[in-house]
């Protein structure tokens, strides 16, 4: 870290500490990769084949953890939005909007892997039951959250409106989760966690599912970190570009 002592520009010290964080981030990415490889081994080599559905049931090991992480992402949006509305600090907005983007990615994947599993087992790609419809609504809510930000002409206004949506939109998360218990659905009821039937998931399958959740959580943490640091860099750039010092001192070539 020899470069730090000679630097006079105020940006640099934070940039140097970030390069430390940058290597920590690389470690996290490596961990995510290693856990995912082990996860794939468990899913395809170790976990037993399901008796009725056969191999296609192995989709569960990505479908379910991605759904849980989407819920976690939207919970982070919820917390970040409340904190932004309260404190009006842009770091809470960065946290919430980063998590929202990841939540949309994960929900999209849930909505893609679901029908691919549904077609060979149910015989249909899609149906308008409570679980599937509320999940699609969840996706629409957070897509509009991102659209609201992208299309609002005023940044702070976009942050404010999306924070309100980030709080209200979270209402749908428990509805999606409990839909299979509250209503009659095409979708499988809960096999694990609160409200599930005892012994509805084979023990080895459960172990694999939990490991997969761990692996996806590490991946999620990396992605969230990456996204947040990107937003911080973007904001740094914006503030430098419009700082008085810069407009007086030099012209920027891009």
């Amino acid at each position, binding site marked *: 870290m020899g470069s730090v002592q000679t630097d*006079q*520009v105020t*940006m*640099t010290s934070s*940039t140097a500490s970030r390069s430390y964080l940058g290597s920590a981030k690389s470690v996290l990415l490596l961990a995510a990769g290693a856990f995912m490889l082990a996860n794939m081994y468990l899913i395809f080599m170790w976990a037993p*084949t399901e*008796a*009725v*559905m*056969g*191999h*296609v049931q*192995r*989709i569960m090991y*990505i*479908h379910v953890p*991605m759904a849980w992480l989407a819920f976690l992402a939207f919970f982070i949006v919820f917390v970040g939005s409340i904190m932004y509305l309260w404190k009006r600090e842009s770091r809470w907005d960065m946290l919430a909007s980063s998590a929202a983007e990841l939540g949309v*990615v994960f929900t*999209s*994947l849930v909505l*893609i*892997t679901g029908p*691919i*599993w549904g*077609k*060979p*087992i149910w015989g249909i790609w899609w149906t308008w039951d409570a679980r599937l419809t509320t999940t699609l609504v969840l996706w629409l809510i957070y897509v509009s959250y991102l659209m609201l930000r992208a299309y609002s002409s005023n940044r702070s206004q976009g942050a404010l409106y999306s924070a309100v949506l980030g709080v209200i939109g979270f209402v749908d998360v428990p509805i999606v989760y409990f839909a299979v218990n509250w209503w009659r659905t095409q979708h499988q009821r809960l096999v694990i966690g609160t409200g599930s039937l005892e012994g509805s998931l084979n023990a080895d399958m459960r172990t694999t599912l939990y490991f997969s959740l761990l692996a996806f959580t590490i*991946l999620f943490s990396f*992605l969230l970190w*990456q*996204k947040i*640091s*990107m937003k911080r*860099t*973007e904001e*740094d*750039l914006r503030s*430098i*570009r419009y700082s008085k*010092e*810069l407009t*007086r*001192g*030099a*012209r*920027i*070539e*891009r």
Partner: protein
Amino acid sequence: MIALITTPANNIPYLFAAYAVTWAIFFGYVFFTSRRQHELEQEVRLLRDTLERGRISEDPDASN
């Protein structure tokens, strides 16, 4: 219990498709995010250099 053994074996392509799509999207997402991050860091470096040069020379047009 005999009827349970009529497990459909022809659903492997669906299994493959689900994992292929998932990994393709994750790799794509990580790739584009990393590339954007890299671009941003380069811009920060450029700006810092420009700022430093501007300071040393004390000349508004130095960076040209």
